């Protein structure tokens, strides 16, 4: 049943009793053409684009828990494409373009809200980096501008642009098309759309082994039995190294806790997204009124989906540096995700030494914004058995050749 205002009214008359399930819960088949391991946003998007763009008919998404329960449901929902290097910015821009029509594509309102993202500069070097990045963005066809502290104050009246601040705001980059989206809806929307194209979404099905015949993948072992597949795409943020080791691969990844928190709902006071690498904080306000705030990455490896409280305290201090009036606002919830960090702060979307086995991982803090684009290029990579030109640079070989794409400046913490 199509989602529309009309159908909403129609169903209201029948007491909402005729809505169909958004996605089925099928039993796994014995064999699929393609198995996607991981039912997060990226995995579901991959399945959706495989079915829609590449006409792959027989696809399963295997999820060990519930779909969207990993980083998809644990991030601060920021979407932007203003990366420094051309390789990264073109990939994220592809994603941005998909975001811009995603609700209509999926017939599921993912509430993509282009309310702009400000990346603040606090030092002269920050400003040089911002100028450099904005110029690169513009030449890559990505909207970006440098704004002065005065302009920031005009756009965001509550922000502290005092020159007496410990780290005064000197300016910012602004990407007007950037914004936020409703994270859960992204998983559910992709799931529903993929399901309608025949994709089997199988929850509570954990992959415990990767089967291969020589150097060719043949399927996976799961908690619900062996499932054969011609191709297996693995996109399991927070678990990439673990699944890689099942296939005998090592990855240049370390998994770290990354935390976030929200305030109690407030009347709208912040109409855009503010990020600061220098003071390690980023904040937006949700449509419900909650301030959504991201903290820094905990330094240690951790799969616990929780970090240290001192990291939250630092994030509070950073936010109060930017918005001293939020001091009396209260934190309502805090949570943690697991970010897989690559040495160059860029993802791996790549074929592997095992034929038919593909990995999509290492998104660090940049995963959510890339969801549709990541799925789109990964679907291409799997279907064609070769990367799309957009993800060609994000191969595994770069760690041998040295062709790294260093996005630490743009990625660091603030996403």
């Amino acid at each position, binding site marked *: 049943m199509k989602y529309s205002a009309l159908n909403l009214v129609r169903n209201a008359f029948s007491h909402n009793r005729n*809505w169909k399930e958004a996605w089925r819960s099928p039993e796994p088949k014995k064999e699929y053409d393609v198995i996607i391991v991981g039912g997060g946003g990226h995995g579901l998007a991959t399945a959706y684009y495989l079915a829609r763009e590449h006409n792959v008919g027989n696809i399963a998404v295997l999820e060990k828990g519930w779909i969207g329960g990993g980083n998809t449901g644990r991030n601060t929902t920021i979407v932007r494409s203003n990366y420094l290097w051309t390789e990264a910015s073109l990939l994220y821009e592809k994603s941005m373009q998909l975001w811009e029509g995603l609700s209509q594509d999926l017939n599921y309102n993912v509430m993509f809200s282009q309310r702009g993202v400000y990346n603040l500069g606090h030092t002269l070097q920050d400003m*040089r980096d911002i*100028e450099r990045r904005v110029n690169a963005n513009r030449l890559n066809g990505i909207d970006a501008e440098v704004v002065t502290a005065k302009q920031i104050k005009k756009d965001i009246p509550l922000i502290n642009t005092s020159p007496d601040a410990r*780290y005064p705001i000197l300016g910012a980059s602004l990407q007007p098309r950037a914004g936020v989206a409703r994270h*859960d809806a992204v998983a*559910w929307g992709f799931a529903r759309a993929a399901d309608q194209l025949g994709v089997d979404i199988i929850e509570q099905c954990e992959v415990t082994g990767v089967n291969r015949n020589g150097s060719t993948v043949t399927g996976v072992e799961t908690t619900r039995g062996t499932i054969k597949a011609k191709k297996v795409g693995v996109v399991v943020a927070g678990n990439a190294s673990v699944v890689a080791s099942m296939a005998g691969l090592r990855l240049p990844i370390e998994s770290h806790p990354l935390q976030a928190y929200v305030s109690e709902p407030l009347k709208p006071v912040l109409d855009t997204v503010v990020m600061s690498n220098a003071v390690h904080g980023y904040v937006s306000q*949700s*449509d419900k009124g909650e301030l959504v705030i991201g903290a820094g990455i905990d330094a240690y490896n951790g799969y616990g989906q929780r970090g240290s409280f001192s990291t939250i*305290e630092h994030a509070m201090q950073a936010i109060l540096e930017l918005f001293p009036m939020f001091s009396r606002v209260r934190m309502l919830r805090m949570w943690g995700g697991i970010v897989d960090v690559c040495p160059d702060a860029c993802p791996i979307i790549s074929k592997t030494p095992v034929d038919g086995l593909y990995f999509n991982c290492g998104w660090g803090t940049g995963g959510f914004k890339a969801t549709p684009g990541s799925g789109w290029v990964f679907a291409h990579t799997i279907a064609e058995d070769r990367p799309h030109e957009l993800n060609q640079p994000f191969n595994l070989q770069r760690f041998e050749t*040295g062709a790294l794409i260093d996005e630490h400046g743009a990625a660091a913490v603030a996403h």
Partner: protein
Amino acid sequence: MQVNRLDKGGRIDRSKPLKFRFNGKSYEGYAGDTLASALLANNVSLINRSFKLHRPRGIIGSGAEEPNAILQIGKGAHTLPNRRATQVALQEGLVARSTKGWPGVRFDIGAINDVFSRLFSAGFYYKTFMFPQSLWNLYEDLIRGSAGFAKAPKKPDPDRYEHINAHCDILVAGAGPAGLMAALAAARSGARVILADEGTEAGGALLRSDEIIDGRPATNWVETIATEIRGYEDVTVLKNSTVFGYFAQNFLTITERTEGPIRQREWRVRARQVVLAQGAIERPLIFCNNDRPGVMLASAVSEYIRRYAVLPGKRAVVFTNNDAAYQAALDLHSAGATIAAIVDSRRTGAGDLGEQAKAAGIPVMPGHIVTNVSGRKRVTGVKIATWDGATEGMVDESIDIACDLVTMSGGYSPAVHLHSQSGAKNAWDDSLSCFVPGEAVQACESAGAGNGRWSLRDCLEDGARAGKVALAKAGFDMPDIAVPAASSQAVKPLEPLWRVPAAQDPDRCPKQFLDFQNDTSVADVRLAVREGYRNIEHVKRYTALGFGTDQGKLGNINGMAVLAEALGMSIPEVGTTTFRPPYTPVSFGVCAGESVGELYDPVRKTAVHEWHESSGAEFENVGQWHRPWYFPLPGEDLDAAVARECLATRKSLGILDASTLGKIDVQGPDAVTFLERIYTHNVGKMQNGRCAYGIMLGEDGMVMDDGVMARLGDNRFYLTTTTGGAAAVLGWLESWLQTEWPELEVYLTSITDQYSTIAVAGPNSRRLLHKLSCSVDLGNENFPFMSVHDAELAGIPVQLFRVSFSGELAFEVNVDSNHALPLWQTLMDAGEEFDITPYGTETMHVLRAEKGFVIVGQDTDGSVTPIDLNMNWMLSKEKDYLGKRSLSRPDCLRTDRKQLVGLLSEDNTTVIPEGAQLIEDLSAPEPVPMLGHVSSSYMSACLGHPIALGLVAGGWNRKDEVVYAWAAGCEPIRARIVSPVFYDPRNERQND
């Protein structure tokens, strides 16, 4: 007129009347009231509107579970957003407002949503607002227009906060009967104890109780025990203090609301043992229109009557599935209210309390249920049906009873939040119909109602037990402690009733609310299941169940039960939800503590800082340092000041405070071996007394830091690092020394703060030092470029380096920081005849750029090798060093890598903006290929034209080619690729 105030009783101070305002009207209450009790005393029952449907709402609870009475307290910078009226202590002059409802809470336009509530079913927003796409912004503005409860303050917080670190043997969370017993045991045994309770006074549920302990009223007992506990030296009793976080290794956080100059304090406690005694939270019953003002929890009704002497209604219906609510009925009765009926879903009725109710003449209706409520802004009556205890379908609601208060109890849920936060699981107890703490995974014991013990006698016993267990584990002797005598009534067990059957089926009946704040109803959860959202996490996220500011304390368990019913599963099969901090919301301010404003990050200042300030320097932040950026004379801007400073230095004499450079002393027999592995050049070949420019690479081959190093002896070196990199470099060196090469005997000492560095640069620098009776011969023979001498300058012992970051004849003077300011002043005085000119970082940058010297972090990023910087000459072929192997990877050998070049604007006048990208073809379509970028760019006053440095792909093979420097908002600038050395390429001046 406090019409609902009882004539006597309560723990309020009637001698202290307090005036307050709510929604613009004046009221009066008493000291000891909460805002909620004072509002109820004044018969204010309509307090707020709900989030989505804007339904009228009153006060349901009396504590942290309250979902409705979410108010804006105070005004201006002091305003407190989203405070629960049940937890706001009444104060003279308090001003409170509803946070929902426009134009007001009585008449609210938004209530139209309730009329169309079927449209606003769970997740409706995912299904609409999509067509046309262009209107989403408009739709969203409308959605946002109704967002939020209270307003954030607009002014910075005038109050202060602080953090306290504490250690204790036993931390007791909760000062109800169980917590008091545990704390008493611990205190008597001599342990270091912290007892924290969120209330204004100890006692917990006893404050609303008429129970007898050891033959006297329970509140008397509480006072005696609390007084004894407070009397022990090693005991800290914290009232108004919520234990809100339980982290790894028994680290717990407490927020204390104080009355002193500090508004709130965060205690960060490391406890050897923890006793969790936070009590239990009463559950609602889920019947139609159960959200109407006047529907209240039984525990809250008792609390308002007994603790605050407020009678919240005159004619009550009590609806329950357990014995506890009978107490509320008795309390209502003895306070003078009429009990129209006790409606008990159990056909068996209650135990001892049931007998008491009957004895008091209260009509009891066992085997009945309240199915619906009439009244909109206040309860006017209920509909009642007989019930067989099993039917889940429709029932016949044939009985109408008028009332102004519905008192409900769906049983209690232990407050297992902290237990869950500690990493432990909760377990479903079928006999108690609630989650109880499962096996502990940290050093903690749960006790009392929080451990599923309902009767007072059990709570006291369990508290004593938990205290003893904790003490034993912590290695203390058992104290002498007897459990006081308390009653234990005969109780008939609770019979689960998660959703009350109605006259229509659950999808059609009037709304049965589970999450009052978010307007999540039974029908919403059932809809979610129908649509395939079956996992509890999906259901919560889809319906917003539990996402209100009460964090699901009130309705979550009922919600899980309704989900279980819809799925045909049991509650534990649906799963437990994991609780995360905070237990109740905590202010950003208290989490941030003192580290805000100027204490956000300490400012580092050099020993000469005062002089810079008094000389009118403008400063920039470099790392944690405040460094002079430039020294403007009156009327000068940055450009003018920098031009003057540059010219003065090149022509005669400049002086720079370079103290922020990182300085590391390296000593030990293996110093050479060690540094050979760190730096790219041949360290061993350096003569004693000589200096060298050194770079260090990461293992990935990228330039990490640079600086001058000096060999002070066979086994002693002095290193400098960049200002921002000092700490990281020291850490880097230490890590290699300790983890990889522990066999090397080398000692590293940071001397950044101990020594200040003053650079004097310019043709007259030697004369200046000479004038100050420098104790060493400064001539080229004795003191050539790149050498070092100990010396005395104006009688002050110094270390003199003949190094130059400006390309001029220059010396860097290292001096004990205690002498830095006087020495600086001496140099300034003596330099007057040479027109000595202080300069800042900007001039330093221009002077070095004229010489083509890079700044790591400005002209390099994490992707630049020394080869890219044309520093091949510094890369030893004779040894290994960190990062060397990476330089021979294929990508690092490409000849089209981005290489350091100089750039000159063709018109010789335009300063290219820093950060400009370099492109070849102005007409190329996007994405436009970029050759590189401009990393440094200045007007060179000495050369009379602008200069720039940049990184250009294959730049060295592009000498004299012209490219475009492109920057947003500027005309593209034609720039010629040249050598990066613009000034004195033969280095005649520095060697002079």
